């Protein structure tokens, strides 16, 4: 287990380093950053001044090393737009996004696990087919459109929940639903296949033969084992949600890092964009690492591979 952990840790660090390199390179070579910051009306002299001001005249490797050296100490420089450091900006906004992500994943689990269990228990009946249909249609809903529809129905027509902002818990309900439903189809399918596998296994037959109550078999014996891969999947989905939060936070004006990312991209505030890109990738890599360890801890067969 220790060897496996160390190997995985090394791989995660290597991936993190490569991701930082790629995301840095992507933003530097896909266009003239100085010209983008200066805007279309700037003169050549102004663009040159900005280039020197932000150190963009240095060779790329030098820029990268300087940036990486700063990033390792959580120093991402100053925002071009706000009079604040990038680290402070992100630190202030991160709690909102993490809260949103946590609520969204909770919503997704609360919907998809029961649906998956029911679909597996009633396999090949109309219940099963309905659950699968709901899952497929969920995947096809564009999340930004779904968010707008939620606003129209629950905030405008029914007036139950606020339209936008992030002051009270009510502000998080609609965004969490809009962000969370996207993960429900995959979690539901995984729960369903997991349950089908487990329900046909020998120890469930033994439990049934012993005369245990069906509910007890279902929840204590079957679900417990079927839910293991679901937990790992949920971790991965949480990572995806942080990326998807840019759309949902923008629609609901939640002041998290997704919204900050959107504003910063619009304002060409590249130190912030770069830092958020790295941060979200790092969170994702960490989640995958933890999910891998969790799976390997629960299933010794994985450790060997």
């Amino acid at each position, binding site marked *: 287990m220790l060897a496996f952990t160390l190997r995985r840790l090394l791989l995660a660090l290597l991936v993190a380093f490569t991701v930082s390199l790629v995301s840095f390179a992507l933003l530097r070579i896909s266009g003239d950053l100085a010209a983008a910051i200066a805007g279309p009306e700037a003169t050549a002299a102004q663009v040159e001044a900005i280039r020197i001001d932000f150190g963009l005249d240095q060779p790329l490797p030098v820029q990268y090393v300087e940036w990486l050296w700063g990033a390792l100490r959580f120093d991402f420089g100053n925002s071009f737009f706000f009079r604040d450091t990038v680290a402070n900006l992100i630190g202030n906004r991160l709690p909102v996004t993490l809260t949103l992500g946590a609520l969204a994943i909770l919503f997704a689990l609360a919907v998809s696990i029961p649906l998956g269990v029911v679909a597996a228990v009633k*396999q090949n009946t109309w219940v099963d087919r309905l659950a699968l249909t709901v899952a497929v249609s969920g995947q*096809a809903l*564009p999340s*930004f*459109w779904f968010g707008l529809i939620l606003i*129209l129905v629950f905030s405008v027509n029914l007036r139950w929940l606020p339209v936008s902002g992030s002051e009270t818990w009510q502000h998080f309900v609609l965004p969490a639903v809009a962000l969370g439903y996207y993960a429900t189809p995959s979690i539901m399918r995984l729960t369903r*296949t997991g349950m089908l596998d487990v329900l046909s296994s020998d120890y469930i037959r033994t439990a049934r033969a012993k005369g245990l109550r069906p509910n007890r078999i279902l929840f204590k014996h079957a679900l417990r084992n079927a839910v293991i891969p679901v937990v790992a999947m949920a971790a991965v989905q949480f990572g995806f949600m*942080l990326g998807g939060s840019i759309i949902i936070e923008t629609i609901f004006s939640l002041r998290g890092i997704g919204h900050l990312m959107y504003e910063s991209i619009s304002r060409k505030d590249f130190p912030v964009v770069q830092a958020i890109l790295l941060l979200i990738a790092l969170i994702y890599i960490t989640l995958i690492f933890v999910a891998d360890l969790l799976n390997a801890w629960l299933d010794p067969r994985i450790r060997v591979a």
Partner: protein
Amino acid sequence: MSILGKGESPFLRMKVTAAESYIAPSPWRLLRRRVFGHAGLVVGGTVFLLIVLMALFAPLIAPYDPYAQSLTNRLVPPIWHENGTWAHPLGTDRLGRDYLSRLIYGSRISLAIGLATAVISGLIGSVLGICAGYFGGRVDMVISYIITVRLALPAVLVALAVVAITGSSLHLVILVLGLLLWDQFAVVTRSATMQIRSQDFVTAAEALGCSKFRLIFSEVLPNVMNPLIVVLTLEMAHAILLEAALSFLGFGVQPPLPSWGLMILEAKPYMFFSGWMILLPGAALFLLVLAIYLMGDGLRDVSAPENRN
């Protein structure tokens, strides 16, 4: 027996006729039976085909030029509202452009993005995946590493940032999404190739002295085609949704093109008074993506019925 001659025994004759009357269904017939027996595939395929036809014949179907503005006819509501008129069955937008015509032309953009992106990413992903699965060892290690790195990069954010620097256009969105969405292709073709690699017919072809190129193209590729087509449909849907999201954020397809995502963005200021303006393009998007997903799921069931669950 000798008196009756060959094949003249009444029993024998019965057997022969029974064998003749039973004609085994041809593979095509079996396929047809499976395809048309699958409700999701039939419904999804039909809707998808209708949308493709709508895109192809847009100039014939659309009642108006989707770009023609008419400032005296702005924000006309659709026909089911009190003030709706049959002149504009689905109303007009803030510049007086006919909404129905824009929705019809919008299908062209979504389909173009979906197809072009899936082809680009499919090429990249399947080359990487087949190489990793076929050669294994070091090659597999390096390619798996590349896939891991790609998965760690949040696609939406990278696409947004790149498009924001380079300036956005339809071609750029296709290129960026195509270069980003190849991961599933690589993952699926890699594992499919690994399975095929160890089969006897590949070993036999190798023993016959086939070149690597020929082995990959005529032994491996035809056998990974099924999963590849399934991923192709799913990634098409993915690309269509992403383009809509990018356009909705203002960094995708640019005005005046009638992209459905862009139409939702343009309708957003009016959403509280004219909800139909965001409902219609979103519904079109939902319908197209749902049809593609149903088709993809159906194709998976039809091509590999044994792992349906």
